[in-house]
């Protein structure tokens, strides 16, 4: 197990280097002057612009800029944000708790709602309940999250005045963003749980268990669900990545703190060091989550072992 984890982590290094190179050079292909990160919306003279480009090292050849970046990154220094004039790592650290909080809350919603609806639909297939839950799931998959977010804002902030529209602090500011973000993931989990559980429920050992006189509830939760969950766990892992990606939209719509909003600001401002740093960070999270998903198979299904 230990060797396996070590191998996987070592394999992540070329992946991260590849990603950093890809991001770095594709950013340079994007039109737009990185000086915008420094000057924002101000109209400044050409001499000043040239002076600033020189002072911020924006005139150096591309490969030099990249090597400088890699050299520093290896030592754990992601550079300084052009826009915010402070270390990239500090920017990420400041935004991380809010995103983790949002993703975790959304995950809790997605799991409870998704598993709940999926199980309900599977134990009474083709019933009215099944139709209803699957319609909700269909809506969750099809409605774009920014639209759902804006609708919630309209209803709960503007019309009813129950929840604050923007900001980060406090539980009441977490409800709408987490619900919006969790909704889409819940829908996918519900659909998958339903189909996976339906398949398992038709297996012979389920019939055997029922024939032995076990209660239906016990059979579903003890015998069927455990086997049905393997594909679901994979999807939940992937959904975690999707939630991180979805946070980009949700954090912007609700003006929440977070990595997603940081990334949007960085890209729009052509704040290259910040974009680099955030993407490298998110990529590392993906790698780790994927590893955790793979490891969790062994816990759920004792037949799977890692050497």
């Amino acid at each position, binding site marked *: 197990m230990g060797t396996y984890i070590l191998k996987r982590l070592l394999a992540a290094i070329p992946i991260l280097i590849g990603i950093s190179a890809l991001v770095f050079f594709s950013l340079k292909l994007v*039109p737009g002057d990185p000086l915008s990160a420094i000057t924002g*919306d101000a109209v*400044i003279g050409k001499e000043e612009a040239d002076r600033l480009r020189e002072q911020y090292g924006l005139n150096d050849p591309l490969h030099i800029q990249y090597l400088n970046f890699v050299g520093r990154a290896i030592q754990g220094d992601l550079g300084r944000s052009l826009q*915010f004039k402070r270390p990239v790592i500090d920017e990420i650290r400041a*935004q991380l708790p*809010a995103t983790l909080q949002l993703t975790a809350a959304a995950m809790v919603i997605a799991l409870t709602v998704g598993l709940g609806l999926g199980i309900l639909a599977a134990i009474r297939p083709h019933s009215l309940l099944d139709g209803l839950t699957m319609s909700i799931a269909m809506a969750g998959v099809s409605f774009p999250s920014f639209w759902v977010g804006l609708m919630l804002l309209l209803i709960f902030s*503007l019309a009813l005045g129950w929840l604050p*529209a*923007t900001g980060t602090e406090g539980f009441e500011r977490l409800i709408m963003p987490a619900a919006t973000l969790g909704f889409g993931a819940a829908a996918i989990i519900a659909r998958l749980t339903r189909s996976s559980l339906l398949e398992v429920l038709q297996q012979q050992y389920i019939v055997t268990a029922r024939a032995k006189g076990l209660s239906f509830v016990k059979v579903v939760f003890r015998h069927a669900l455990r086997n049905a969950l393997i594909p679901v766990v994979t999807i939940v892992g992937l959904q975690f990545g999707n939630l991180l990606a979805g946070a980009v939209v949700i954090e912007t719509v609700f003006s929440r703190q977070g990595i997603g909003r940081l990334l949007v*600001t960085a890209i729009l401002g052509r704040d290259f060091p910040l974009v680099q740093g955030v993407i490298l960070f998110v990529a590392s999270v993906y790698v780790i989550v994927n590893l955790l998903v793979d490891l969790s198979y062994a816990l759920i299904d004792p037949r799977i072992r890692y050497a």
Partner: protein
Amino acid sequence: MSKRSSPNLITRRRFIKIGGTGAVAVLAVACAPAAPAAPTAAPAAPKPTTAPAASGAGKPGGQIRYAMNNEPDSLDPAKTAQASAFNVMMNLYDTLIWQDPVDLKYKSGLAESWESTPDGLTHTFKLRKGVKFHDGTPFNAEAVKANFDRIVDPATKSPQAASKLAAYQSTTVVDEFTAKITLKTQFAAFYDALSQTWLAIASPTAQKKFGDDYGRNPVGTGPMMFKEWVAKDRIVVVKNPDYNWGPPFWNHTGPAYLDQITFVGISENGARLTAFESGEIQVMETVPEGDFDRLKKSGKYQMVVARTPGSPMTIFMNTEKAPFNDINVRKAIMHGLNRTELINAAFFGLYSPADTPIADNTLYHSKKAVGMYPYDMEKAKKYLEDAGWKPGPDGVRVKNGEKLVVDFVDLTTYEPKVVATQALLKPLGITVNVKALDQATRVAMGHKGEGHMFSTALLDSDPGAIQLVYHSRNLGGFDWSRIKDAELDKYLDDQAKEPDTTKRAALLEQAVMKIMENAWSFPIYNFARLFGVSPKVKNFRTHPIGSYPYLYEVSLE
């Protein structure tokens, strides 16, 4: 040495009459009575757009939340160039002098009086005594020197302040409260530069203490003190109880009325509007034009159109590329594009039409160029015919087999303007391609001349700033019309150094006439910032540079 306690840059003052009623009267719809024709060479008295401070004491206490459309990058005046930062910094810092928003004269701030040598190269400032920075250290001549020396130090990498101090040579500390500033070259807009918050005085002790992170831990002498900055969430400032050194034109003395101001950056228009309409925030900046109209009609809010000085929102026509390399085609645009209709169609008629490169609320605005190109479709068509552009089979004009097609490159948020231009130029037989892009891309395209039309407004209390968009030294920068004209350059260079206000006004007028005669740019409307203000907020009015509000004056009902 000519001695003056308050330099008179305007010879004549005009009284303004406030339009509108109630609290909304503070706004910028202040209209000046028709003025007698001024001799064109004299420094023209501009039409101020901010009302005088309302008298009567406000109630101290309370707090507001103030929403901007983005988060500032830094609160170090030397290291930022962003409007949102200026907004917050105006509360944290004081400048040596302040520009009065009504008569546009320079008034005392951290400097009580000042004098300059006739050559305009040496300026001696008598500083106010008893002023303390928020960290308890005293404000003195050493602090002035430390700040200005730091701004021009290349290691500071200053984006805006350093260009305002380009002429700076050195500061001599004459005694604790006397600072003598020496300039390398004459700089007519020096006092104006000093009145802008980019050159505000920060605590040198705090700058040393925090180093590179000073911008996140700002310490000034202003009416509000920095409390906290939660990145991407809020910036909180609280009342400075010792404050008693504001400029004379503010509506009260002593500490600010508000106990606390929380600044939030909300870039999503929908979210910003929802937060405002649900009462979560009391002041909202950058209200989208369509919603401004709706909120105003609801009668529930104070809706403020705050005019900015400088250059109006202007379309720059790329003179290096066909068809705008032909003056006839540019003149066709000048006559053929209907400003009023454009403003009505794209902006719900919120802005006033502008027709010269220096806005009429700015120092040295000249009336000479006003009305040079009245809207006249027939004249516009004739210019196009003269240029050889004949109507083609599909209505689009053609010359040598080429269609009259131009690209209008602009910011996505300005798209309504571009689309309206497209519609309004269609009857002339001109096809306009809409290229709506993000800021970084469209600025880069403007700098490289990739496109035919670009637009921007210029916010500055000194009109000399128009050199940023018209001087050939800015080709490859914001000279988006790509003008390379030695005569215009000379007017712009000379005015920047001219200490005599009458002569300076004449030079700026010559520059403006040159630009207009060559039809290098099309001024559209007087730029303004749109605010939504809760009815509970009293005495909301704005500063002449870029229309930042004086939150010091604000109180709650």
